[in-house]
């Protein structure tokens, strides 16, 4: 199939690629742009593993063609940790053991990070509802819920709601020098 030029704006950078018009956004992000943190678990819109933000809205990248993303800002999991430091939600999931194999994790982080921005004070039932579009086969969800709750608490404490900097609740896991709490 003929390839067409597409310009994508991903994590604040411009990528000019040539792809077939039917190529999924998930595949282009992974194969043509080389950001493999976005995972593909079903390719039919059920599992949520491929969730990215398109203009800050969580979107299943397996249900979109890359050409449809032209002119929009795409954000992937790779953009969340800054300077080798996990963000508040990532850190909370780490502390609460909210991930095992980690395959579902990027999709869950992208979904719940966006959710917490709009719902700073969720109940456990709210969190479970918001999470219900993301499948996890390993954890039984309980520790993911605990992690999201913890992140919500840290956001509330930092009340500004800024999520790019990590909270000060506890030691951080960072690249290279690992810390154990």
């Amino acid at each position, binding site marked *: 199939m003929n390839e067409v030029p597409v310009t994508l704006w991903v994590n604040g950078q411009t990528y000019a690629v040539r792809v077939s018009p039917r190529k999924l956004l998930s595949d282009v992000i992974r194969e043509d742009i080389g950001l*493999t943190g976005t995972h593909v678990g079903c390719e039919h819109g059920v*599992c949520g593993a491929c969730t990215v933000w398109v203009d800050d809205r969580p979107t299943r990248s397996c249900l979109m063609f890359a050409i449809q993303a032209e002119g929009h800002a795409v954000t992937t999991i*790779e953009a969340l940790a800054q300077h080798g430091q996990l963000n508040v939600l990532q850190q909370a999931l780490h502390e609460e*053991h909210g991930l095992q*194999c980690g395959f579902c994790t*990027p999709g869950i*982080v992208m979904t719940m990070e966006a959710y917490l921005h709009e719902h700073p004070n969720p109940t456990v039932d709210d969190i*479970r509802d918001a999470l219900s579009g993301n499948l996890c086969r390993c954890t039984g969800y309980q520790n993911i819920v605990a992690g999201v709750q913890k992140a919500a608490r840290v956001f509330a404490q930092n009340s500004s709601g800024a999520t790019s900097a990590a909270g000060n609740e506890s030691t951080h896991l960072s690249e290279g020098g690992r810390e154990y709490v």
Partner: protein
Amino acid sequence: MSDAVLDSAVHHQTFTAIGQSMPRVEDYRLLTGTAKYLDDIEVPHALHATFVRSPYAHARIFRIQTDQAMAVPGVVAVVTGQDLARWTQPARMAPPIEGLFPMEMTTLPIDKVRFDGDPVACVVAADRYTAEDAAELVMVEYEVLPAVTDMFAAAEEGTPLVDETLSSNLVSHQTYAKGNVAGRFAEADVIVEATFSQHRQTHVPMETRGCVAVWDDGRQHLTFYIGTQVPHPMRTTLAARMGLKETQVNVISPDIGGAFGQKIALYREELTVAALARELHRPIRWREDRMENLRAASHAREDFVKTRAAVTKDGRILALHADLFSDFGAYSFFPANYMIRVVAMLLPGPYKIQDYSYEVKVALTNKCPAGPMRAPMAIASWVTEGTIDAVARKLKLDPVEVRRINMLKQDDLPYLTATTELYEDITPRETLDRAVHSFDYHVRRKEQERLRVQGKYRGIGICSVIESTTYGSEFYRKAGISGTGHEAAWVRIEPTGVVNASAGIMGSGQGYETVMTQAVADGLGCNPHDVAIHLGNTLLAPYGMGSRGSRGAVAGVGTTFLAAQQARIKVLAIAAHLLKLRSSKDLQLTDGQVVLETDGQWRPTGLNLRDIAQTAYLNPLALPDGMEPGIEAHVAYDPPAMTYSNSTHICEVEVHLDTGVISVGPYLVVEDAGTMLNPQLVEGQLLGATALGIGGVLFEHVVYDENGQNLTASLMDYLLPTAVETPEIQMIHMGTPNHRTPAGIKGMSEGGVMGAIGAVCNAVSDALSPLGIVVEQQPLSPSYIKSLVKKASKTAR
């Protein structure tokens, strides 16, 4: 490894790192999207493979026309079973087990297909999109044969044969008897019968299967990337089937997005990809889509059990007989009796039943082949505990009382079961009592009565689990299955005093790198920050049996602990020499510092692990006479024939009669997994296993129609539990160490599945008992529940 090392490992009591909820070292890469799963590995110029699959459950292959597909630009090859037969060896499954017929399969089917989704051809193209387009153009002419979809019918005379080299679809049939079962039945006051029918399910790891094969023609060497639980056995099998030496193959397992037993066998697609890479002299990759995964990877759990118990009128079980039947699907990737045999072995459970007999049959059908799925013996606890509940119902006794009357107590241990399994260091009575107490069982019973008057159907279910975790070589020998239970590990202290370590196990989410780090830190006496664990590369890791069952903890981490202890012996010997001490007996390595005991006090010596390592590598002349330079320990360890964990699950459910919907919770698990390597990870495993069990009972179901068409090949049809349906689970730990294993580890991670199935099913039967309903089959779907209620109200009228 010397006996002294094992002995000190078993009796090692003070831990600093083991037993801590150390946050996982794996997490950073997984949370930031920088982990490398199979499909994230970039291989330049790799071609993509895709498979043409049979739309029929059972059909003869007449002709495969590939020219149209070959004509698609970008297509490099289209190959069939005939081609693969020239390049690879067939797989023969023929363990010398009485009553088990040998089976053989080619790499891709040649004459006929045996299930909906059976791969018949492979298309290789420049990219996946093109390969899939071309696969649609491969024309296969079939003659459709009658499909065998029901295991009971399959075993009957005159049914079409799934495997025409056999004389019957009944591929395995064994009987067993211990004690005087007939005599006990003659003495019984009552005979209680119960049936249990479990439905077909599948693993659904969030990452599907896949592989990348890179053939180096100059070196005649294959590098095979694949998410596998068992890197070394995978290498052995792959080399053999390709006619290569094991020196010509390296298996590398990247991060795995869940496995649950589905990533053990060498599948036919994977072998095809490896063979094609060699034939085409091009790197080839394959990743299946979700539909293929649900339809053609591996299925599990389709078991049927009927029990008969001989019981006294006060509820004592004198004897038990069980008839077991299992649907094995179309091909043999494992010995056909492998999984159901363990169910039969475990059925007496935590109860004193010495008179026990069973008959176990396994049939082939035109369905996806069966394989072990997290707790392959999952049905066992439901059967045992469901039988106990049936006894209680029949005699109008409290189910807890019937359990107590029959259950093993500490005085009975060690206990040799009717199936010659040795139970030691287990606490079934303790977990039961604790569960009943902590759950306010008696208060809830009263509440249940009260609610029933208001038309609310609540039920309480209890399931005590005896979980076989680590299978030692002796177990395999007894079972007549080839394979061993040992594991191997190495620990190497590098010149700067940091530590690399490896073992043959491969993780798929369990957190092995973390618990192995803890084990090395404690076994050696160093800081966990200085330890790095390397798994999954067969050139790096020692040959081990990989990850299956719940052997990771005892076999994998236990062996690593032993290797670290072995390394410590050398470290301390060098330290003693440098300190001019006669022996190292008063020395210890703590947090990387060498300390000396004088007058009951540990005092610093000024030496640390780095100093010792520098000496060992860079100043060998300063070492004790005759000692080799370097510090490296390599240990192999064979665990006891079997280790057991135990637990009691107790939960409440409410059944909504109008909709058939079941809500589960509260839910409590009291478990005893021995020494916990990392309590947070133990809880994580327990939560995951319990959720998987609950999902299986309530939602998940592989459905075939009468023609053998798979009706559940998308995640919209095969329903996994979400965060909304999965209940909150409370946990209590007992922590009774196993006295034979390193650090008292027992292993766990499958028992949660077993307990959940039994507890939820028993609770639903309890809830519906006023209507005279007992659930005898899963899944407990709303339509099944409604049909039971409807039938019951008809009979009542």
